[in-house]
């Protein structure tokens, strides 16, 4: 168990590699974990998640900043001496070794006495329910079993830090949900500081104590799942977190500092949550989540979006409808038994408190008063 600190960490792959870009793959990464915290790194493919993990692991040298584990600067320490265990997306099991030997490998390198190795491997195997597989070679295992062995190989070491880089993305959907729960249980039990990478925001939201949202090598926001959902820092985070994605409408804030007008939509902004005075008369990006839109027949409603349905997706518990409003695609999540059809003209409304306001130019959220968020 350990506290991991990343201060101004950056990675530039430089010109040595043929895929190298001039820009940094990761830039100015700052994060200090709690001891035993479960941190999720999330972001679209290529945003630098793996690079960050590999720098923590020591597989890649950071080109700037410092990485500390329990206060010790490990920037110059080889991967093998960092006391970190990693679970790879490909599992990276040793194909020529049995499951037992895969799990025992690190311990035998450390010259742990045989009986202790056996004890620890058996313990880890029984935690993961793979005792009956110990004599098999990896190729005789299913995907889910390999995944367990990969986890087993990591936990048997009792390391300072766990790194998991998209460990579930090769599993089918059902198994993924099961393993997700299992990894969380495992984390509770072992309490080892964990970095978990995923590009799947649902996985991030369900697993992370804190989530680091990344984009193009930059941290966008570090927060709890709740804070990310309720108080996203910018348009990117707002759109990335939550399914289906948040809707955005470009609207102009009137001189009264309240009324927002678009072509066919109007809203009344509340200044309770975000300070909007400074933006009078300017364009704002107004965000509202699909699950916060409801059907209305009241043409005089303060918050009103009008449009014609062009996609209906009945999912049973809910019905998703899509409409085109002022050139923006709007998705609304309606009650499951709503009877709407394609082509219906509908009106949607929502609570003003549910609106997220962003500067249309910088795409940053307008300053918030309440709902304090710890951002990087």
């Amino acid at each position: 168990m350990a506290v991991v600190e990343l201060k101004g960490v950056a990675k530039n792959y430089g010109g040595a590699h043929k895929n190298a870009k001039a820009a940094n793959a990761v830039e100015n990464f700052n994060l200090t974990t709690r001891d035993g915290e479960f941190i999720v790194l999330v972001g679209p493919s290529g945003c630098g998640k793996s690079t960050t993990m590999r720098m923590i692991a020591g597989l890649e040298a950071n080109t700037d900043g410092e990485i500390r584990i329990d206060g010790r600067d490990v920037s110059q320490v080889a991967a093998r001496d960092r006391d970190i265990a990693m679970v790879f997306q490909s599992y990276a099991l040793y194909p020529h070794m049995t499951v037992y030997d895969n799990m025992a490998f690190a311990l035998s390198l450390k010259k742990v006495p045989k009986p202790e190795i056996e004890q620890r491997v058996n313990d880890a195997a029984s935690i993961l329910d793979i005792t009956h597989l110990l004599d098999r070679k990896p190729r005789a295992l299913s995907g889910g079993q390999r995944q367990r062995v990969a986890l087993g190989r990591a936990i048997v070491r009792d390391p300072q830090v766990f790194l998991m880089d998209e460990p579930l993305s090769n599993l089918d959907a059902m198994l993924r949900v099961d393993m997700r729960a299992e990894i969380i249980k495992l984390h509770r039990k072992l309490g080892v500081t964990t970095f978990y990478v995923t590009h799947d925001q649902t996985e991030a939201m369900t697993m992370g104590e804190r989530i680091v949202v990344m984009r193009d090598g930059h941290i966008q926001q570090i927060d709890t799942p709740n804070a990310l959902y309720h108080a996203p820092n910018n348009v990117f985070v707002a759109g990335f977190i939550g399914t289906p994605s948040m809707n955005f409408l470009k609207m102009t804030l009137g001189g009264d500092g309240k009324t927002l007008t678009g072509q066919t939509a109007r809203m009344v902004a509340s200044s309770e949550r975000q300070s909007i005075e400074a933006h009078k008369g300017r364009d704002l990006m107004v965000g509202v989540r699909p699950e916060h839109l409801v059907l209305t027949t009241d043409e005089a409603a303060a918050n009103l979006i009008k449009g014609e349905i062009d996609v209906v997706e009945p999912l049973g518990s809910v019905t998703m409808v899509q409409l085109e409003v002022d050139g923006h695609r709007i998705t609304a999540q309606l009650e499951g038994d709503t009877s709407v059809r394609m082509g219906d003209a509908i009106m949607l409304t929502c609570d003003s408190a549910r609106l997220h306001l962003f500067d249309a130019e910088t795409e940053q959220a307008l300053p918030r008063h309440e709902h304090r968020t710890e951002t990087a």
Partner: protein
Amino acid sequence: MEQKSSLGLAVIGWLVAIVMFFPILWMVLTALKTEQSAFSMVPEFVFTPTLESFKTALSQNAGYWHYAFNSLFTSVMSTLIGLALAIPAAYAMAFYPSKRTDFTLVWMVSTKFIPAVGVLIPIFLVYKTLGLIDNNWGLIALFVGMNLPIMVWMVYSYFKDVPKDIVEAAEIDGASTLATMFRVILPLALPGLASTGLLALILAWNESFWSLTMADHNAATLAAFIASFKSAEGLFWAKMSAASVMTVAPIIVLGWFAQKQMVRGLTFGAVK
């Protein structure tokens, strides 16, 4: 459609195989003939086989075992030394590539473009000065040099086929470079290493140019044994064929046993 084309391929395959195999068959047949019938202008397909030529070739003064020992010793030693050099070289290039790795690989193989005769004189002079002429170790050094580029290239490609994640997993598990090499990479590349070794062994065993020019009697290999039957007068085809059969037989037997291994090793990356 498919049936037809695979039939056509089978016919072509058999034709090629027969064309390739015929000289070997003819050599074996000739070895079993008498010198007279071997020399006959009209090829004789039906004859009474005799082991006379083999007996002569094995007789004490012909010294088959002396040559065979030299062939075995030089090819085995050159293969072992070649592997000992190729493995670390390929390891560095596969796992710690630099900007010049690709160039180095191409350069190494390009040394194979030089015809051996082109370097005969300088090597002969150097060997003469060093006293390596007609010396097993002199031949071994030449065989190692001759096979090393191919060996490095092959071992390199087998190492490249070891997934990078696995190497990194070993590193994170605490394995030193040597531990990673001996406990993870070499076991995984073993089929490839075996084919590389086999190929080097065969190439060294079959080598004749350097064996004939750099060795006289002490270090002479089976190539010299075969050549020794050639004479200006008298009939020698049957004896020479018998000597040739005894020379290629071990390698054919080895190849037969290692067939599966060879195919697996040589097509390693390709069939994944």
